[in-house]
């Protein structure tokens, strides 16, 4: 169980996050929407340990993580740019988190091979990142993050740079793998449809303040969720087609 309580962050006199609180059950995914500059990335970086919060707490099964260094949290931040290690093969990239945990080569080999098969990367294991497509790179990134079974995965618009077809495939693939490994995640996106597809629960960050919705119905009802506009857009397209 993840519990985030009263997180606040300001840069100088500019307040970025104000009293952000939410909880997330094990294996669940909360979609997080918000306009640019609403503080989404700052929140993810604070949870990952890459930024310090001015106040607040971040509990994992009651254990306080807010003051732990990033390398001890087991909370992985996954950005839009896959950030693969350029000098490492696909195999080495996926197994990186296990190697730094000093796991035995046999065990690493077994885990990497299993996961690579699930991510359909088994034929690319010796390739370097620059030899992969955007979708393949993002799959390696997932593999590298998931293989260590993190306490929480923070996804910062991971599919934003992919085309519509690849994006859709990646969403399904991620959901399958996340379910298999029981991954708890916070999924930041600008795409309402993606938010609805990926999330079990939802959140909307408005100028540093987070509103949480536990069901799709609650989320859709929000006037500024953008869903009403989306529905009316598709209805107008359908109407034009009929005419």
């Amino acid at each position: 169980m993840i519990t985030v309580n009263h997180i606040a962050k300001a840069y100088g006199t500019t307040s970025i996050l104000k009293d952000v609180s939410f909880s997330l059950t094990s294996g669940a995914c909360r979609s997080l929407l918000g306009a640019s500059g609403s503080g989404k990335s700052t929140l993810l970086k604070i949870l990952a340990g890459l930024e310090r919060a001015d106040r607040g707490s971040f509990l994992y099964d009651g254990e306080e993580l807010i003051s732990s260094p990033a390398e001890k949290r087991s909370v992985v931040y996954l950005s839009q740019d896959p950030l693969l290690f350029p000098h490492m093969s696909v195999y080495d990239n996926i197994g990186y988190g296990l190697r730094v945990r000093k796991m035995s080569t046999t065990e690493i080999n077994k885990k990497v091979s299993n996961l690579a098969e699930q991510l359909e990367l088994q034929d690319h294991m010796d390739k370097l990142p620059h030899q992969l497509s955007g979708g393949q790179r993002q799959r390696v990134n997932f593999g590298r993050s998931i293989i260590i079974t993190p306490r929480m995965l923070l996804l910062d618009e991971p599919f934003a740079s992919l085309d519509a077809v690849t994006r859709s495939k990646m969403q399904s693939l991620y959901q399958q793998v996340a379910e298999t490994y029981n991954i708890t995640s916070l999924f930041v996106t600008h795409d309402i449809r993606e938010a609805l597809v990926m999330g079990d629960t939802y959140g909307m960050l408005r100028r540093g303040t987070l509103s949480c919705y536990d069901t799709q119905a609650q989320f859709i009802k929000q006037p500024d969720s953008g869903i009403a506009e989306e529905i009316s857009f598709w209805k107008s397209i359908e109407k034009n087609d009929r005419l």
Partner: protein
Amino acid sequence: MVGRVVTYLALAFVSLPLLAAILLSLTRSWFFPTILGPWTSQHYTDLWSGSGLVSSMLLSLGIASLISVTSTLIGGLISVALHYGKSSTSRLLALGYFPYAIAPVVLGSMLQYYFLRIGLFGSMGGVLLAQSFITIPFAVLIFSSFWSDHTTRLSAQARTLGASKKAILYGVIIPSARQWIILCSVQCFLISWLEFGLTRVIGAGEVRTLTVSIMALASQASIYEAAVACCLMLVPPVLLFLAQHKWISTPAHP
């Protein structure tokens, strides 16, 4: 047509001096108007009989190798400190161009007083220190182009995956900087290998590197020996350029 002319001019520009040095090193008793003198390999066999060129070459190799390793290491460490430091790096980096604004021989003259005072004038230690005044800022400038937002984010990614600072340095940063390390060490080696003015002034003729020996031979009108020395001078740079091309053929960033 213009492109072809430029290509031929460039080829002539590179090959004619090389050709002259190679031909002169393999002839003897050359007098105008003959095109070429009689062929001989005598100048090369004389290298091993006390001409001093071999020892000059070994000395140059030693100095250049030491400069290459230490400057790359120190320059790399300074660039890390600048990247993670709080101070304004652009101003400090601008200082790195200082040695290039002054001719080496002038820089040598400016440093001479201090080197005399600390007892390093006319010594190999003095030459090494003086050359470092040029190569370390150069190394810092080269490494400054490595540090970017991408490098910072790559390190952050490794941290969230559980890597310690040491693991990030050895497993991520250094291997990612491979191209910069190779480029820097090769360039620092070449700067030192080809350095004359500063070495001549600070070394005071006591430290006879290959460039100092070539100038001495040329001023003594020993053109054949000078040509042999020039050919020796060419060997490491050619080998390094070939090796560098092979080593850094793999891209470091996706």
